[in-house]
């Protein structure tokens, strides 16, 4: 199980649960080492994220517009249970479309630069995507994904992302960063999981959804109510129901009947296959097929047919070129 958890990126989270619970005393000494090590790692990671947020904050001191934290970074800044033991590779920020050039140049002055991309990939990001190319810090190697929208603007499921962004609020006790509203954090996590084509960390993302739902429902009795209304407003009601169904299947999330759709669609069944154990020893049958179908679906959702055709032809052309040897 520890190997599974390591593969799924969930070892530190399990370590938090186990060592923080009443069964901590009954963990055999031979496994205690791995779990303690994972806890040490996640504590170090959390310190690094907080330090990184401080440096981003000072790099962006001249930006007056709100800067939103998304995903893992927001869980850490808000101290949510979903931050416990969560290891992620980049910090996601969101600013308004018209601010993006300014924020990008301020981050460059702070030491984050965009890696080398060919003209096509750069244009793919800037023209079609919801984020600019990832920016990496020259010394620390940390990465920022700067977004101007929560989902791809070319996405065929119409999501009113600007509405969620407009209703964002400042994080209490933090003068620089803003956050989405509670419902929107969960809706964004659901959209992030299901509008994406990769499910390598799908189980962890689903676990986030479970933890967010349990936490927000505990804070406010009307959370489910507000979630239903909000998902309809922004066009994510189907995505929300699918995500909660999956969270309920894997983590018994206490979702009430109004939000639970017990008849999974073919798509949800595919995702269920894709997020199940991905360790090479225990992969379930048909997972590779499910992965491929989901990737095709994602691309077709993300890009309108004409763009998709251009994209595939370009990637095929690039794939056929002899690989340039890069000296490490």
């Amino acid at each position, binding site marked *: 199980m520890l190997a599974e958890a*390591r593969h799924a990126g969930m070892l530190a989270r399990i370590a938090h649960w186990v060592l923080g619970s009443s069964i901590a005393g009954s963990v055999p000494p031979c496994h205690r080492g791995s779990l303690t090590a994972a806890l040490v790692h996640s504590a*170090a990671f959390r310190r690094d994220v907080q330090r990184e947020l401080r440096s981003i904050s000072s790099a962006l001191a001249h930006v007056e517009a709100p800067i939103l934290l998304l995903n893992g970074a927001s869980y850490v800044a808000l101290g949510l249970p979903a931050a416990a033991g969560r290891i992620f590779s980049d910090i996601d920020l969101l600013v308004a479309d018209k601010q993006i050039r300014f924020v990008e140049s301020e981050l460059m002055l702070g030491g984050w630069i965009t890696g080398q991309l060919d003209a096509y990939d750069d244009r793919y990001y800037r023209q079609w995507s919801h984020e600019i190319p990832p920016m990496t810090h020259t010394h620390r190697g940390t990465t920022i994904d700067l977004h101007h929208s929560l989902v791809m603007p070319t996405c065929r499921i119409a999501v009113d992302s600007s509405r969620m962004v407009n209703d964002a609020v400042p994080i209490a006790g933090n003068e620089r960063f803003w956050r989405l509203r509670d419902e929107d954090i969960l809706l964004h996590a659901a959209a992030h999981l299901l509008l994406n084509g990769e499910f390598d960390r799908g189980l962890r993302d689903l676990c986030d959804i479970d933890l967010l739902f349990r936490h927000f429902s505990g804070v406010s009795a009307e959370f489910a109510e507000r979630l239903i209304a909000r998902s309809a407003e922004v066009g994510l009601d189907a995505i929300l129901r699918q995500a909660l169904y999956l969270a309920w299947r894997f983590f018994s999330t206490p979702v009430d009947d109004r939000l639970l759709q017990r008849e999974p669609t073919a798509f949800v069944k595919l995702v269920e296959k894709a997020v199940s154990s991905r360790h090479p020893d225990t992969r379930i049958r048909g997972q590779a097929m499910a992965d491929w179908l989901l990737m095709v679906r994602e691309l077709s959702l993300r890009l309108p047919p004409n763009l998709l055709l251009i994209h595939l032809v370009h990637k095929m052309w690039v794939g056929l070129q002899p690989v340039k040897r890069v000296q490490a």
Partner: protein
Amino acid sequence: MLTVQDVSGRDLAEAMRHGRFRLDIGRLRLKIKSDIPRFPVVFRTLYGRYSCAVNGGEYDFDISIAPPNWLRRHIACNIVFELSGERPFLPVDAGHAHALFEWGLNWTIGSFAHNYLILHSAVLETRGAGVLLSAVSGSGKSTLAAELALSGWRLLSDELALLDEKLELIPCVRPVSLKNSSIDLIQSRHPEAVFGPLATNTHKGSIAHLPAPGDSIRRGSESAMPYFIVFPKWIDGAPLRMRAVGQGQAAMRLIDQSFNYSTLGSSGFQRLAELVGSAEAWEIEYSSLDEARNALDELVEHHG
């Protein structure tokens, strides 16, 4: 207790192919999976005296050494290291399988075993005193460790010092990796020593592995207290010179050679401060292995 050499070559290959092979390296338990025909053969030379299981069981890390895909198996003859299905390194030539296994295992411990403060250092013990040999690559650390191990010192590790919260050195007894001219040097001094096969043209040059002495393997779960920190430096033709190193300087040099000092945060600092506070630190320059070995022997002896 079943050891690797008790298992027939065929059964070993079979157990490795089907993922049922487990190896105990002291407290560390590994699942090792491989379907490369030569890998179990070399493995038996280097890990013959370790206890193992061929019918599955619990493990801390699951490692696989296998071709990355069909094309690379049959045409390029490449292999890749996997930990829990992740591939942290690029594929290498199939002839380097064993070197890849050792690097991969070092990387695995360095990246995950944060329950220890991990220093890039050889660890040996003699007369109850733990000695760390800490140095950058190429300063003769492994050669000196091999010489001491073959002269009766107990080997705890040739590469990784693992310090637990009680400041004990936890063994991780594995074959000593020798590079280039060190291989001939140790072979000529100790003709009785059996080496694993030579891996040529790796990114570190030629590499051969010397199996750990049987006694060190047998005592592979016995920790040792650190008494000395030694910074060895081999210089061609240089006379033997020893110099005491102050606590602060020793700490700074160890931090440079640590895998996870910053990951451990304040507990890393405390552990390191206790280490340099309780162990004497010495710098030693030498060209003759005999002189260096005698000097270290005396150092421990005089300490009582």
